């Protein structure tokens, strides 16, 4: 869980933000890249290592991509970054395609996890949750307490047996 991007990884992910996210999100690139780091921190270690290795490969193989003119992926201008990403999205092997898709998904997730992006959509779940939670407790308190008591009530048809094993 204590993953942190290496500088190259962060730069590469940042260069992909304009490819994956709408223009209004581009100023949030640092925060989006940081969120990708949180998500990558939750991945199993072998998966995360494979992903980072794939990202390095994505970055380095741009050197051999003719339109890139010997630049790494994170150094490409936005129009070429887009074309280079497309070359992986429709790449020759499932590995190319899955890497492009997976990285894109992480960036899109991070994009719409940004509070500013959610606010722009009018997405306000916390306020809704607070309101309906309060109302539920006000209106249905008796039923709620009845269920909580029922959860702990013994079943008269199941008399307990004496315990056998010792605890520790």
């Amino acid at each position, binding site marked *: 869980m204590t993953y942190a991007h290496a500088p190259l990884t962060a730069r590469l992910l940042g260069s992909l933000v304009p490819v994956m996210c709408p223009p209004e999100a581009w100023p949030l690139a640092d925060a989006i890249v940081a969120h990708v*780091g949180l998500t990558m921190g*939750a991945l199993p270690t072998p998966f995360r290592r494979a992903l980072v290795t794939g990202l390095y490969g994505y970055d380095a193989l741009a050197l051999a991509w003719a339109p890139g003119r010997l630049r790494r992926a994170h150094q490409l201008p936005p129009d070429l970054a887009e074309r280079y990403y497309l070359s992986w999205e429709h790449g020759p092997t499932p590995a190319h395609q899955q890497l492009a898709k997976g990285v894109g998904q992480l960036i899109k997730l991070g994009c719409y996890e940004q509070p500013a992006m959610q606010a722009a959509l009018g997405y306000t779940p916390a306020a809704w949750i607070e309101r309906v939670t309060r109302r539920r407790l006000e209106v249905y308190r008796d039923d709620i307490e009845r269920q909580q008591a*029922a959860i*702990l009530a013994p079943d008269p048809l199941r008399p307990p047996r004496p315990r056998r094993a010792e605890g520790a």
Partner: protein
Amino acid sequence: MVAVPRPAVRTDHVPAGVTTRDDLTAPLTLAADVVIVGSGAGGATLAAELAECGLDVVIVEEGRYFATRDFTADASAAVRALYRDGGATMALGDPPVLFQEGRAVGGSTVINGGMSWRTPERILDRWAREAAIDGIRPADMEPYFARVERRIHVAGQDPESIGTDNALLKRGADAMGWKVIPNLRNQVHCPGSNNCAFGCPTGAKQSALVSYIPRALHFGARLLSDVKIDRIVMAGKRATGVVGHAVGADGEPGVAVTVHAALVVAACGAIQTPALLARSGVRSPSGRLGHNLSLHPNVKLTAVFDEPVRGWEGVHQAYQVREFEAEGLLFAAVNIPPSILAMTSHPRGAALGRMMRDYDKTVVAGMLCEDTATGRVRSIGGRPQAFYQLADFDAAKLVRGVALLSELLFAAGARRVATPFAGVPELAGPDDTRALYARPIPKRAMEVVTVHMMGTAAMGADRARYVTDGHGRVHDADGLMVCDASLFPTPIGVNPMETIMALATRAAAHVLDTWAP
């Protein structure tokens, strides 16, 4: 660059009877009558039933203990905290199928939608007939279903909790003349916070976390959270306990944990259970351990309406469209947060922005497909890896289901519908839905997910064909049971939680009837 997590989940106020990694500072050895690995629908139910009758039960859960007050609308943080591997678990195949498993006290019941349906009678009859399981016909199972439904309070939704997305789904089904029914859910006056998949923040959903686990603890069960079981200890063919280790905050292994018990129960779900048995050296004479994986492949559609929908305001899946149940297809409205919608949608860049600008006018509808193919879980380096190939027949069924569901959404007033098929343009009307049949849609273009994994330690009388007997006791092993969806001989076509709980209740009765340590 180090990201700072926003506050989302707290882990204070752990109840009595629960031992967490914070308490585990030295190696721990316990003795009990029964040790249950996994605290979800199967494990928690079995634990409560056995503890109430006086057996000394220890539950071991790999995930953390979270309380209702810990759950918030921060979906991404919840996924990282509550889902195995941050939700990035995948069955490899064509297409790859993303699946989710809960990893927290309460298991996947903490993150499911709360749909509570009995096993269809045709399925129970099939299990009795094909797997030769005694006492599993609908009439036999009736008392177990009834008992579970009382415990987790299965009920219809209060009308005021039903949001616009579900009302539109029902409107479309009614317009098509299709069968649509209110969903039964394990809830007490659920107010429709639509946060089910990220932990119920109201406490209304009666997940195992707030029902069977408190009951088990009340009757004396002990629960170890943050403990991963490495293997079941076998003495010849008899299981004698489990060994594992605490899981640190950084995921690194902590102190050793050992539990000796007369009965060991694997209840960690259809992906983890076969892997646990395999790495413990358990060999099924059937050769079927880990085989027979069914997934109920799910796909989703997004439909944009003229009117405000605000899908996050109202209950998750208030209705199910059952018109095509006989074909193995169910439809429902399944709102998801914008980040997850964006992540799982094909558009990117400016096109993604255009799509998301209509988020508050969007209905997300999902489809469950009862599958005919089976996959496999292999244990690779001790870790499970699922493999699954979508059958041609099921792929065709997904296309048909998407076309039907699109028709429903247009009948409800949708202006456009995005399908789960890459490369297929948005549908602009009912005529476009019919065109879906005209073009071949490759499986690799299908965005398929699931939360229903089943069948990898299937039960049946014949030890040459099934891994366990009809109660979940592993064939050719003593003191070893399975108690989760691994047991299902076939997919069931509906949400599996209540089936798992009913089978666990039935298993508990069998254990108590035959208990002789």
